[in-house]
């Protein structure tokens, strides 16, 4: 997959990742990511049809905790770390779209 990524694809990925990148940066990433994708091409072509994917090194199951309340973090401490707070809440600039 030489030059695997197009400029538009990289721009789309940057949007998904909420990164604001200039064109020159996008081009650098396009080349570097293409290079990495070329490197992984051999692994992409391995025949793994018979293998199940591993997402976790050990197959632990049913790790649960009791439904018992424990104290959290005090609001003052939480909001002191916030870039902006108002009225006991985190303040953010206006939101243009509704949650999907």
């Amino acid at each position, binding site marked *: 997959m030489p030059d695997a*990524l197009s400029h538009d*694809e*990289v721009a789309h*990925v*940057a949007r*998904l*990742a*909420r*990164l*604001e*990148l200039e064109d020159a940066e996008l081009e650098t*990433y396009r080349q*570097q*990511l293409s*290079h*990495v994708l070329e*490197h*992984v091409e*051999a*692994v*992409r072509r*391995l025949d*793994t049809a018979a*293998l*199940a*994917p*591993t*997402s*976790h*090194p*050990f197959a*632990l199951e049913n*790790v649960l*905790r009791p439904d018992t309340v424990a104290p959290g*973090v005090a609001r003052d*401490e*939480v909001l002191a*770390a*916030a*870039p*902006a707070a108002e009225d006991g809440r*985190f303040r*953010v*600039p*206006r*939101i*243009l*779209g509704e949650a999907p």
Partner: protein
Amino acid sequence: MSAAAPFAGGAVALAAAIRRGEESARRVAEVVLEEIAGADDLLHCFNAVTSEEALRAADAVDVAVAAGRDPGPLCGVPVALKDNLCTRGVPTTCSSRILEGWRPPYDATVVSRLRKAGAVIVGKTNLDEFAMGSSTENSANGPTRNPWDTSRVPGGSSGGSAAAVAAGLVPLALGSDTGGSIRQPASLCGVVGLKPTYGLVSRYGLVAFASSLDQIGPFALRVEDAAALLEVIAGHDPADSTSLAGEVPPLAPEVGRSPAGLRVGVVADFLVDASPACADAVRRGADALVAAGAAVEDVAIPELLHGLSAYYLIAPAEASSNLARYDGVRYGLRVDADDVATMNARTRSKGFGAEVKRRIMLGTYVLSAGYYDAYYAQAQRVRTLIMDAFRRAYERFDVLLAPTSPSVAFPIGAKSDPLEMYLSDLFTIPSNLAGHPAVSVPFALGEENLPVGVQVLAPALGEPAMLRVAGALERAAAPDARGPVRPHGAGAGR
């Protein structure tokens, strides 16, 4: 550090001396803080030195000893923490601008355990931003230098912890290892670095890079000290769902036991890609194990060479999601804008360095619609392939022997191509993918008289056998191959 270094005899011996009242925790802390103050302008191992907290903790230890109480197994021993471990009220930055000034409202589980064990935490060490790198050059605070040659990197991403131990600034340090980030800098700095079995040490409070691979582990000058530190931090934690249940067996006593009778496989596939000195160290290590009574044999596990590619799909994918939360809303940096989405994007663009952005981009891409199966799912199947290959090897061997790093420490700025840098982790990554333990033991001096580590790999929870072999390697190692070393420039000699 001077010959009168309070921990010349090791961390375990130091704890014993303080426990017996022969040494004062306060004096040790003061010496350490002074040494750090003297050396760290040059080395830059530390992002923050917590002098006041350290002295207070040391005094508490002395008071306890005076009152006849045992402050714990690490009684008064100074410990440095990689700056991606949360410390209550103390800045935890991950060497990133995006977390500048953030003070966690809680301690990581390993930090609580250290405090309970009587350790004295002296500061937070430098790392590649969010642990992404193999040289500690990708830090918003600038690079850490290798005390063996200050024009070279200490390796990474736990370079600050490795260099601090190598320079004798602290007897113990913690790092994190996602693809080799403890073992590779340990090899490049001439110290012991151990990545435990995944789940043996709680990840609660370790700022996540790649959750299914990350594991916290110890640095020390001696294998026994590393094992003692591991004993303190290991064990089930209900706050980490991936934490393994069950008791942790005593580990430190294993270090002195003979490896006679153990079956050791030398991963022949890795020797080809290692520098002559790195490959030679493995061969000589194998000879030493034979001499100590182990059964050593070459083994071909070519599947392990696919690990690097699988890793560079899985780790960035998890990272892209783990690092989404740095959005300027709740903590850390914010670059203001007229609407929230633009604010998020500007904050992240300014707050993250180039390598972090590169991995977020790569990870976002491989998870995105249409590519998931080709890349991410495929990498997870290759992970299975590697685990199967390991399983077959461990039917014949108790442990495996391999180089830790393909080369000795390289000059700062030498690897500008990301892929070239990624190759530094070729031999360490398979253990992360499988969740297995592995340790790098300083063994020889290689090219440019720089230290070379040998890596011992073991199956899940194979730490006891792994430590026996590591101890044997340590006893056979060249005495000048490990720290402490007084920081110096190129060619200055030891």
